[in-house]
């Protein structure tokens, strides 16, 4: 699993360890850090530029001559990008800078016009695939700021080997909790506040669980009138630095919350729920389902399905369906935050040969008590980044609380097994 050091730092604001120290502490506490590397190339001398003036090149129609404000001074640069416009904030590589692909910036003359530096594409900066148009930054960025700072590019990625007995460590909050237990600081959970409005969620959607062994808990929220658009750059970049492709704000938020809380979520386009209800049931032997990776799958009665009362919309805890997927035209969202039982998830995942970030966590064991927090966190981010009206209340179908085993600790036994006497006070402090 990949972790962002910056993210850990946001969760533990008083974390005093640097990335190398974090790696060492985690390795020596049982979660081996296999590698530690920078999230992105961080070339010096790339700054946010404000495009003040754009004129057509006197000698070439497809080239533009721009005046770019970079804080203390202005530079004239020639650019051929089709999407360049006056007023944009862009990434400008200053003369003398070497880009990640090795290209060195020089002051030059292009068809008789002086040009200093270059306005860059994502690809040229080494932070994305788009190479034919320039990267346009958010308007809030101040001209002259370094790009690495503006986009929070300076980050370290830790790759961890999480052992199967520690599913609680499969998230940033999980690892942050671990670091706090090791004395690294105090955990500060992320914001979950949002506004509710309109009708009761319960009058909009009804949840029924047929198989309470496979699905002990299912919670649903409905958010109406969202705007699906690309995620802000900071969110997209962080997800991509952790190996998850950015798709759209709402989809990215469910992935974000999964990496943050360790709890898998699913967002459905609620207009595809013909029956306005959620029924969790076992698949009929031989039932067919088209998952969102475009593969048609034949199910056995071992598989657990999320349905709209009749038609399946997802294979529980593993993958959603193509039909109910959130798309550019989605307006209303049903946000699922459920708990699926490990053996059921594992069996289906094995049977279908289908492993996802979600199935990986459910089959190792998610926390049923974490479902509400994860749902609230995602709702908060959806309202922040996609707008919309959050209906009142959470529909929480949890017929029988999952019992937590009590663990007895016998100090005498500890001494026998470990071979040294551990004072009561020290023992208590460690377990805090």
């Amino acid at each position, binding site marked *: 699993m990949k972790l962002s050091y910056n993210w850990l730092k946001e969760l533990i604001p008083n974390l005093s360890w640097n990335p190398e120290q974090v790696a060492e502490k985690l390795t020596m*506490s*049982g979660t081996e850090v296999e590698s530690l590397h920078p999230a992105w190339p961080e070339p010096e001398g790339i700054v946010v530029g404000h495009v003040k003036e754009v004129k057509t090149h006197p000698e070439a129609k497809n080239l533009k001559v721009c005046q770019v404000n970079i804080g203390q001074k202005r530079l004239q640069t020639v650019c051929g990008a089709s999407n360049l416009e006056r007023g944009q904030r862009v990434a400008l590589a200053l003369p003398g800078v070497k880009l990640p692909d090795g290209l060195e910036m020089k002051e030059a003359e292009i068809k008789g016009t002086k040009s200093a530096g270059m306005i860059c594409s994502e690809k040229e900066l080494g932070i994305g695939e788009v190479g034919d148009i320039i990267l346009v930054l958010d308007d809030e960025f101040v001209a002259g700021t370094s790009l690495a700072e503006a986009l929070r590019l300076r980050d370290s990625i830790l790759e961890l080997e999480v*052992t*199967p*007995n520690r599913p609680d460590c499969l998230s940033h909050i999980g690892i942050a909790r671990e670091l706090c237990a090791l004395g690294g600081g105090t955990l500060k959970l992320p914001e979950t506040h949002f506004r509710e409005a309109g009708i009761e969620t319960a009058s909009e959607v009804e949840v029924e669980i047929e198989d309470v062994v496979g699905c002990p808990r299912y919670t649903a929220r409905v958010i109406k009138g969202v705007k699906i658009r690309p995620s802000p750059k900071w969110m997209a970049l962080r997800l991509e630095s952790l190996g998850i492709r950015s798709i759209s704000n709402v989809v990215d938020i469910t992935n974000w919350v999964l990496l943050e809380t360790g709890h898998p979520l699913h967002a459905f386009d609620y207009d595809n729920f013909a029956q306005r209800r959620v029924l969790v049931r076992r698949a009929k032997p031989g039932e067919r389902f088209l998952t969102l990776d475009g593969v048609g799958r034949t199910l056995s009665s071992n598989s657990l399905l999320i349905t709209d009362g009749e038609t399946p919309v997802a294979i529980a805890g593993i993958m959603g369906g193509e039909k109910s997927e959130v798309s550019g035209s989605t307006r209303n969202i049903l946000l699922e935050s459920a708990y699926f039982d*490990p053996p059921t998830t594992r069996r289906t995942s094995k049977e279908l040969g289908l492993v996802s970030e979600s199935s990986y966590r459910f089959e190792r064991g998610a926390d049923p008590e974490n479902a509400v927090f994860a749902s609230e966190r995602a709702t908060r981010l959806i309202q922040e980044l996609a707008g919309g009206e959050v209906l009142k209340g959470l529909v929480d179908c949890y017929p029988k609380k999952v019992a937590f085993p009590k663990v007895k600790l016998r100090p005498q036994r500890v001494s*026998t*097994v470990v071979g040294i006497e551990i004072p009561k006070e020290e023992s208590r402090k460690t377990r805090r």
Partner: protein
Amino acid sequence: MTTQPPDLKEIEKEAQDLLGECDTPRKLEEVRVKLLGRKGLITGVMRELGRLPAEVRPAVGKEANLLRERIEAALAEKKRLTSEEKEVSEPLFDYTLPGRTPWLGRSHPITQTIIEIEDIFRGMGFEVAEGPHIETDYYNFDALNTPEDHPARDLSDTFYVDKGILLRTHTSPVQIRVMEKKSPPVRIIAPGLCFRRDTPDASHVPNFFQTEGLYVDREVSVTDLKGVITAFARELFGPKIKVRFRPHFFPFTEPSVEYDFSCMICEGSGCPVCKRTGWVEISGAGMVDPEVFKAVGYDPEIYTGYAFGMGVDRIAMIKYRINDIRLLYENDLRFLRQF
């Protein structure tokens, strides 16, 4: 002037007596002089032949010549029998030439490593145990607290022979087989071949050697485990070696650790062999999980124990500075002759 003909029979007898006594080349030479020398007995007979009457001379002469021939032959025979004569009579042989070395077989570096590991642990009171390569699900997984649905079964990709029959993925099944037959105290090591579905590369091969260690008794603790691993490391690699334990997870031990040795190549300062960490991962260990004791009918309230694994190939590679595990299994004589 006439003379009595010499008594050749008497002379021959005398000559025989003289010959009979000589057993060294030196004595033989003395006898030869006595018989055939200028003043020798036979020479005397020949000289006197001239003084014999003409009518007996030919007959006596003939007899005397035959006698001389016989004596000469006897002398030659005697000479051959004494050692000096013998050497000369055999084909010429130069003892100073270097010998032609016979082709000696030798132990494979893995075998040498296993023998060394066994010796060290025998010295600490361990017995050597063995188990089959082809195992059942029960011994390889279930009895080791790794039931069917356990995610830890993902940790090893298994070669199945048939339903429930597999090539053992570790030497740990030997623990179960030994504990089923024997009551504590148990103190064994079990070296042997294991199998996993790995694609061969510089550090993985689908069949590899492990050594299992197990000690069960009353009040066995983590400190004993640390002690035995550290003592082993020092015995094998010298007193400067450091041993590091990191918490880890295995279904059959609790608590579990992975243990590392300080890098022998760079002595801890960091090099490509230790991936610049100064440490080389050796294997896993831990305190036997009470569930494992229950499976073999030991009472976990009475007994505790530790178990450890040890990558034999890994140790051989460190010891002989081999950078690719595949070399150990290709059986190229040019490689094997170096050990």
